[in-house]
């Protein structure tokens, strides 16, 4: 409404502004909203026929809450007006060309007059995908008006009030299953709370719906997804992008099905897990890059599932698991539409990578340099990575969607292969001295045979998927109802890790965020805004809240990723919440929503025989 700037920031506190609002009836509940932001239907087979074959039909409703990114460095930008009327901005961001596009429109400037330079952000997780366009615009408007550089850095409360969050979800399942556990019909309705503006909600809904049936085979499936407008904070991109919400529902529902059939949850999943040759809900036929059973088997073995499942029975401890998958890269025809470009240039030192993909802590620069160095047979030190600057690098697309290694890295691998041929055995620095700079630019090419229909939502939703299984071991305090996740066994297959230390960091960090999402991270909304916008009462996991992790990276090299790599950035976020809730089910607590804060657990424990006298027997000390 008002943008204020002053060279002495303390002076801003003296500014008095009166804003008159006209109040209408707000809608905070997405189910009460009449405004559909996006509607998606995925349909396969014949639901009625499927349900007719079922021995058991089980229904359930599952809910997830908002989640705040809490990158430790809040959003910030510096805008600098140029003498030629252009605008240069420096900022904490994931996607330089998104900001570029926004500023061109806002300031009515041509491509070359807007320059966006990334300063390495202190964390992103999707939270610096779209919002930076907003804060960059604010800084740019002030800079244009004042003719001076303007810096805006949010404090934590401003960041939490203003920026996007993970979409709350309501997912309803109606599932037909045979007595032997075979899934015969799945009817799934997904509702996402989009908040007040469109943001990236349509694509979040899309990824959420595509992942809603989980990594399972079912001939008759219908997924109906709606993102609704409400008068609340706009929700947007957050690591996992809709999939953590819908996979939570699927995996919590699977354990209820297992319970209803009196079947071990592992056996139910083994019966239905996708295998090479099976088709997904969108009709995508999976190849040998499908590893659902491999990760499940390894997680069961590694965690001591069978032994602990028996040993914990009747105690305050529980063990539960979740099987999940995540599509790498943009959904559907997204990558073809993006048509990302990467360049590689010789320099006096070696070669220089030119991409707009950003380092946000996940290791983009290291991993890209490794891909180029190993492809060309060069020492790592001779590969430089240019700073993402829209004036100096091609648009390799946004740094999102688990695509920076698999998609952008693959284009760089192709650049490096051609560069090696072009150099004819000469070192890049020597070639540069003799012939001047050589520049190679390549554009994304989809793997062969990818087909997608955006109208019918049929076909190859993603070029490939990564696969994972989490096993959570929890203990419930029978007095406070606090749930502590003590250990997670985390098994991932994402092709092949390019840099095992960094890849493991992605898995462990994403898993910890999933633990927070499951148990302690609660956004309290009041009048459509975040009421607990500070780290004192919106808490993220500390060392003492985060379980110890046993992390296993299984390999199944993917032929169309660099050195066999698929995406790993988001998948770790998808599994912890259902694994933790399923571990609580093992204790006898019927939880169908996250965060499963103590008040939710207490309500679930009303009829809990073990809670009588506030006393629970303790599990056998071993394990």
């Amino acid at each position, binding site marked *: 409404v008002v943008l204020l700037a002053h060279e002495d920031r303390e002076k801003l506190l003296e500014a008095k502004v009166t804003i008159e609002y006209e109040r209408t009836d707000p809608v905070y509940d997405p189910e009460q909203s009449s405004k559909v932001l996006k509607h998606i239907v995925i349909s396969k087979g014949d639901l009625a026929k499927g349900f007719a074959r079922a021995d058991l039909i089980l229904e359930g409703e599952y809910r997830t809450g908002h989640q705040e*990114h*809490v*990158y*430790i*460095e*809040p959003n910030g930008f510096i805008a600098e007006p140029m003498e030629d009327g252009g605008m240069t901005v420096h900022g904490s961001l994931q996607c330089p060309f998104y900001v570029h596009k926004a500023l061109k429109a806002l300031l009515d400037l041509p491509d070359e007059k807007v320059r966006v330079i990334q300063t*390495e*952000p*202190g*964390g*992103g*997780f999707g939270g610096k995908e779209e919002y930076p366009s907003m804060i960059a615009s604010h800084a740019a408007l002030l800079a244009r008006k004042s003719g001076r550089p303007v810096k805006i850095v949010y*404090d*934590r409360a401003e960041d939490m009030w203003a920026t996007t969050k993970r979409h709350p979800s309501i997912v309803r399942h109606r599932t037909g299953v045979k007595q032997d556990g075979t899934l015969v019909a799945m009817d799934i309705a997904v509702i996402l709370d989009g908040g007040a503006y469109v943001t990236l909600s349509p694509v979040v809904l899309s990824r959420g719906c595509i992942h809603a049936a989980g990594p399972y085979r079912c001939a008759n499936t219908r997924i109906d997804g709606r993102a609704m407008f409400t008068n609340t904070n706009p929700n947007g991109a957050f690591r996992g992008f809709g999939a953590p919400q819908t996979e939570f529902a699927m995996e919590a529902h699977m354990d209820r099905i297992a319970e209803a059939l009196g079947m071990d949850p592992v056996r139910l999943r083994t019966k239905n897990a996708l295998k090479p040759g099976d088709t997904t809900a969108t009709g995508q036929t999976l190849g040998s890059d499908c590893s659902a059973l491999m990760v499940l088997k390894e997680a069961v073995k590694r965690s001591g599932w069978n032994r602990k499942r028996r040993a914990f029975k009747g105690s305050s401890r529980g063990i539960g698991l979740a099987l999940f998958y995540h599509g790498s890269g943009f959904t559907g025809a997204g990558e073809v539409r993006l048509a990302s470009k990467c360049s590689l240039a010789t320099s006096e030192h070696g070669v220089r990578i030119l991409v707009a993909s950003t380092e*946000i*802590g*996940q*290791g983009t620069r290291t991993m890209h340099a490794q891909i180029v160095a190993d492809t060309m047979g060069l020492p790592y030190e001779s590969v430089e990575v240019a700073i993402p600057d829209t004036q100096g690098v091609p648009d390799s697309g946004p740094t999102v969607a688990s695509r920076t290694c698999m998609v952008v890295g693959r284009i760089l691998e192709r650049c490096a292969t051609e560069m090696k041929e072009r150099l004819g055995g000469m070192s890049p620095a020597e070639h540069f001295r003799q012939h001047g700079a050589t520049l190679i630019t390549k554009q994304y090419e989809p793997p062969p045979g990818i087909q997608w229909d955006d109208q019918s939502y049929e076909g190859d939703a993603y070029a490939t998927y990564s696969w994972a299984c989490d096993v959570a071991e929890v203990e419930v305090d029978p007095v406070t109802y606090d749930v502590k996740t003590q250990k997670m066994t985390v098994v991932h297959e994402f092709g092949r*890790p390019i840099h*095992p*230390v*960094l890849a*493991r*960091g992605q898995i*462990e*960090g*994403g*898993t*910890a*965020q999933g633990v927070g999402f499951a148990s302690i991270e609660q956004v309290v909304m009041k009048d459509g805004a975040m009421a607990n916008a*500070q*780290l*004192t009462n919106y808490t*993220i996991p*500390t*060392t*003492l809240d*985060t379980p*110890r*992790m046993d*992390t296993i*990276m299984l390999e199944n090299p993917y032929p169309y990723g660099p050195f066999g790599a698929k995406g790993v950035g988001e998948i770790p976020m998808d599994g912890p919440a259902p694994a933790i809730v399923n571990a609580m089910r093992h204790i006898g607590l019927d939880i169908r929503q996250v965060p499963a804060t103590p008040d939710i657990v207490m309500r679930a424990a009303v009829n809990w025989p073990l809670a009588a006298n506030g006393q629970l027997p303790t599990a056998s000390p071993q394990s």
Partner: protein
Amino acid sequence: MKFTLNGDTLDITAHPMKRLLDVLREECGLTGTKEGCGEGECGACTVLIDGAPVCACLVPFAQARDAEVLTIEGLGGEHPLQQAFVREGGAQCGICTPGMILAALVLGERPSIEKLRAGLAGNLCRCTGYEAIYRSVAAAYENRGTRERGNAGT
């Protein structure tokens, strides 16, 4: 007002109620100390005052009078903890890292995992899930952190 910063005696003119965090960043030009929340919850601004870890966002400059303040810059960049955090992936985005390293420093060499978890509980990291931080601290004191390669591979 006089105080010792990373071994050098300084005389800085600033309001006594100015946050030590702002004095370090703005008056002294040392931006290694980060602000994550401004209310003492995240620990990103952890510095040592006379050897004790404090949140520099909660400490008025007046409290640093005649004290010895150590910031991440005071470790010089080659400290075994710093090297180990690089090698073992203990730093991802890096914003919690300066505070995390200073908090780990006061725990002494080879802290037990229980002591480490309790000692770092005031420092939030959103990237690593803490496991790589535990590996970093452990590795820092193996061979005094001079090894070429990390032990945190596959």
